[in-house]
């Protein structure tokens, strides 16, 4: 029975619904811009990670290691680019 029940996917599905609900709260409740954006960004990234791991099966094939290396590399470059640009053009201008 345990093999037949996709526990991981069901938990993932419920979790992604909860994350969507939390993100929706930002619209329906009264909170400051900073708090709202923080919640949106946090839920968005957790959601993306959940989709990649649970529903796009990263790490389940023999390419798992290179898929995670690739994601890590991309995230690193994206963060450097975004925060580097903010530093150059806004924070330290």
């Amino acid at each position, binding site marked *: 029975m345990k093999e037949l029940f996709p526990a991981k996917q069901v938990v993932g599905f419920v979790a992604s619904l909860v994350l969507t609900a939390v993100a929706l709260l930002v619209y329906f409740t009264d909170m400051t811009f900073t708090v709202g954006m923080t919640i949106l960004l946090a839920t968005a990234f957790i959601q993306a990670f959940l989709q990649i791991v649970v529903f796009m099966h990263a790490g389940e094939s023999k390419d798992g290691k290179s898929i995670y290396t690739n994601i890590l590399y991309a995230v690193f470059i994206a963060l*450097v680019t975004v925060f580097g640009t903010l530093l*150059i053009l806004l924070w330290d201008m």
Partner: protein
Amino acid sequence: MEFLEFFERFAIPHPSPAIYASMVAIALTSIGIVAGLTYFKKWGYLWREWLTTVDHKKIGIMYLVSALLMLFRGGADAIMMRAQLATPDAKLLDAQHYNEIFTTHGVVMIIFMAMPFIFAFMNLIVPLQIGARDVAFPRLNALSFWLFFAGAMLFNISFVVGGSPDAGWTSYFPLAGNDFSESVGTNYYMLAIQISGIGSLMTGINMCTTILKMRAPGMTLMKMPMFTWSAFIANVIIVFAFPVLTVALIMGTTDRLFATNFFTTESGGMDMLWANFFWIWGHPEVYILILPAFGLYSEIISTFSRRNLYGYSSMVWSMILISLLSFLVWTHHFFTMGQGALTNSIFSITTMAIAVPTGVKIFNWLFTMWKGKIRFTVPMLYSIGFIPLFTIGGVTGVMLAMSAADYQYHNTMFLVAHFHNTIIPGVVFAMLAGLTYYWPKFFGFMLNEKIGKVTFWLLTVGFVLAFFPMYLTGLDGQARRMYTYSEATGFGPLNMLSFIGAALMAIGFVTIVYNVYYSFKNSSRDIGSDPWDARSLEWATHTPVPEYNFARTPQISSSETFWDSKKNGHVLFKGEIEEIHMPNNSGVPFIMGIIFFIAGFSFIFALWVPAVIGLIGIFVCMAMRSFEKDHGRHISVKEIKETEEKLGGAK
């Protein structure tokens, strides 16, 4: 009269007799090519063997020919600039023409010469080095080439149709905006680079997949030949860097064509954001060019020192480190833009750090040669010349990396000297070394060594004379991109020296053409498949390489499998010959290239009807591909045996 008004937009805004002469020359050459093809009945041959090919070797050769053509186009720009600056207050070119020439020189040399040159070697060598039959997506590969070619041709017609871009190869806004660049020149820049950039991105994906998925049995990542490693890292950088360029170019295009305000100075636009995006792509781009060059040097130095490459794993790790660091240094291109000392200090340090892995590689090459039996062939001469010259370029790079000192060097000829000092001995010498080294593999005869050595010395002496004086005039304050200077500045004699150097280099490049002609007529065709006594797998198959590369899949023992099979009794090819599955040719990539060209041209001149039709055509081609059933073709065992017999026995 309305008819004439429509065509007025294609007129050159700033004409001169030289441009009219070029128009006539281009028209005559085109007529000549068409007439020649018709007279010799070569249209069918051209279509079947080249325009529709998906063979990585033929695509590589087309990249190679295009790169050499563009080298001469960019070289003509260079010699005109040096001639204008050779004497004070010269009148050879006016300011506008000088602006257009330094802009097109930069774009042509980086995007349309250096890029296709490295793609040529990746296409020619990588599948052979990993024992594959072709790249992972052969038709996509053909599309990459035709997009590059469409972009290159689009860019090259700019100076006779509508006017060339004149805002520098960096095309900084607000200068590149509509207010200051009124002609269609900068539209050409945006669209032509966009089209060829999409091709580059496809090659990046294609090569990464090929290298990760199609290696022969036994070839682990750490047993890949060094050129394949360098190609892999360069393509990873392409995949991460080129999307930034794509997006920046789209933003620039919409600013110019649809009045958006991404890079304008009003309505919330930020002109400095262009410089920022440009260099987020632009700095990794220089490593995209230099890493495959390093790969070629590694192959050549180890072959002609008769030793295996010193420090294989440190070579690999230094390249991986470079691929990360290359994304961390972009601000050093605009230290003077106005950001604070904190930012500049951070990027100074990351920039200096990148010299460390590069230094590791230099020492590895020196240790490879140490106690080796060095043969001074032409490819080896370029590699040996590269080490000291490139190191000088690297040292001046560290000088420029110090942000406080950079305020002195910025925008002077010192910078121009520095980056040519890295690109010419680094990339151009590597390409010429690779050209000489791999020529026999793909054309069946060697290039003449004597003429090759004359070329090497002309280029080296010419290079030193052309660029070292710029360090001095730059430190004395000669600004780059200035079309003239007064006699009182005292820059005259050193600039004359530069011109002499540039002229020597021009003669050097002409000797390459002569060498090809001379060797084609006189060189022996009986050279075997391994004329240099080389070490890696690409030399293990026949010359000329059969379309399926290897009749039987090679078994890999180390990064120098072929050497092992020659010296250590490793059995390279086992088992019986089996049927080989190959992809079919297709005309769609070529047609898509033409459609992209037409659509790009229409966007440049804001001709919306053909532009929209072109865009639809592109999507139609893509949709047709999705529904197409093409399972490729099979080469029978009998056919393979016949080919192998003809080429001198099965390998």
